[in-house]
């Protein structure tokens, strides 16, 4: 094997090696290297990307001006929600509220299970605790793949396998929460102070005992805070899962848009808005307490 030559010298960025910096000489003979500006190159690339994107998507601003009143009309109806869903009509009310509660239940259940599963995986994917590099990277790649799958697609799969209903929705929320909490957790586990862990190991604890007694107290507040954060996101996510048959408000949303019953859609969105508002504020209050 050839030994690598020592490269202690400062290595210029790739760009500066391709396009050499200009040398400026001051009147007193001193010189300075000026790297060529990146801005024009970046601007050309960005403009090209925008142009291609506009072509591919058939960008047509005119249609918004021409048919924009349609949006105003629909939004106008959404903003006059059908109040019979809030106690005016018993059947409607129970329909809305059972869907709403299903959504909340799916997100609570999904968040708790997903976050619980995420913790051991996060610990195993932290380089400072798990020294087996292969395991760490395998888990991280797995987590990365899980995070790329959109929740709706997972819900669709779950609905195909487990049948329509809240169970499928809960599975989708579990997978989504698992992916995101595990990632955020291993990132924060890697920043903790390992001194206490070493000390605990030094008086004979095994890795699990050392982690549980020395690291857990450090990461617990962060962990709980991430759980609450994922609950916030999950409420929104769960609201549309019904669209692919996974239970909750999405079923109603699908129905009302299909019937063009925008007043009823408005009622659904209003209910969702109130729930999101309450959960976000409660969660943010609790998270502030935790930190």
């Amino acid at each position, binding site marked *: 094997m050839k030994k690598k030559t020592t490269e202690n010298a400062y290595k210029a960025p790739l760009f500066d090696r391709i396009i050499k910096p200009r040398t400026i000489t001051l009147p007193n003979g001193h010189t300075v290297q*000026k790297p060529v500006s990146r801005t024009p190159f970046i601007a050309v690339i960005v403009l090209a990307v925008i142009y291609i994107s506009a072509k591919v998507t058939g960008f047509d601003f005119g249609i918004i001006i021409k048919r924009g009143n349609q949006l105003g009309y629909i939004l106008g109806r959404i903003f006059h929600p059908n109040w019979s869903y809030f106690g005016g009509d018993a059947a409607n009310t129970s329909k809305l509220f059972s869907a709403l509660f299903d959504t909340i239940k799916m997100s609570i259940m999904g968040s708790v299970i997903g976050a619980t599963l995420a913790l051991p995986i996060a610990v195993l994917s932290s380089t400072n605790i798990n020294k087996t590099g292969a395991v760490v990277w395998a888990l991280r790649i797995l987590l990365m793949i899980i995070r790329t799958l959109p929740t709706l697609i997972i819900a669709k799969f779950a609905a195909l396998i487990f049948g329509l209903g809240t169970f499928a929705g809960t599975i989708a929320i579990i997978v989504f929460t698992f992916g995101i909490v595990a990632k955020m957790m291993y990132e924060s586990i890697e920043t903790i102070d390992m001194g206490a862990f070493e000390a605990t190991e030094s008086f004979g604890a095994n890795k699990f005992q050392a982690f549980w007694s020395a690291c857990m107290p450090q990461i617990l507040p962060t962990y709980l805070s991430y759980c609450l954060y994922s609950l916030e996101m999950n409420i929104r996510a769960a609201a549309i899962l019904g669209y692919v048959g996974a239970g909750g408000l999405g079923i109603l949303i699908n129905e009302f848009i299909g019937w063009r019953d925008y007043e009823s859609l408005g009622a659904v969105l209003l209910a969702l808005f109130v729930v999101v508002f309450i959960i976000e504020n409660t969660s943010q209050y609790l998270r502030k307490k935790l930190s």
Partner: protein
Amino acid sequence: MIEFKHVDKVYPNGVKGLKDINLTIDQGEFVAIIGLSGAGKSTLIRTINRMIDVTGGQLIVDGTDVMTLKGRAMRRYRRKIGMIFQSYNLVTRATAIKNVLTSMVPDMNFFRVLLGLFTKEQKMHALEALDKVGILDKAYTRCDQLSGGQQQRVSLARTLNQSPTIILADEPVAALDPITAKQVMSDFKRINEEMNITVLINIHHVDLALTYCTRVIGIRAGEIVYDGPTTSVTQEILDDIYNGATIPTAEK
């Protein structure tokens, strides 16, 4: 020449910042202003470029009655006076030269300002300013990658770039370690001597003040309690300026 004639400053909340200040500073002096925190050092310095308005008396700089200036005239007046801050006040995300160039902005027309178009002469001038403080090689480096001392030098270069006749420095070395502080102080000294720029410096480190400055002004509770050459400052005088408190510095 800077002349204070019976200058008073009363803050809106009734606190008296300056009381009957009479002072004359000639072109090319290197003056240290010392005193306890809250004694009025910053207030004194900031009245000179009207960052703070005085409430009584007269302040004359190079024949201009500073308190009569308004709007455009005041901004033009400020061009002649450079100011250095303890916290450098740089745009840390921009390169050193971009920061230096900002001091040219008030003299440029609207479109050049908007688009950030600087002429070649302006850029060369900025590079020369960076060269004068010895960090020419960092010209195209972002300021958040520079050390504290280097950042303070960028801010010094920015001030030099506006070709001032007076430089006001508000605690310029307070955030720096002792070695770097000395380097920055000697930069000030060199600029003062080579370019005949008046330098007024607020400083907590008495030993640095005594080493580099030619004149010391001691302030206590808004009043000048000492004004004289560095050479005649004694321990008694320092004790008096600092209200008899022990001074935590090296002796002499």
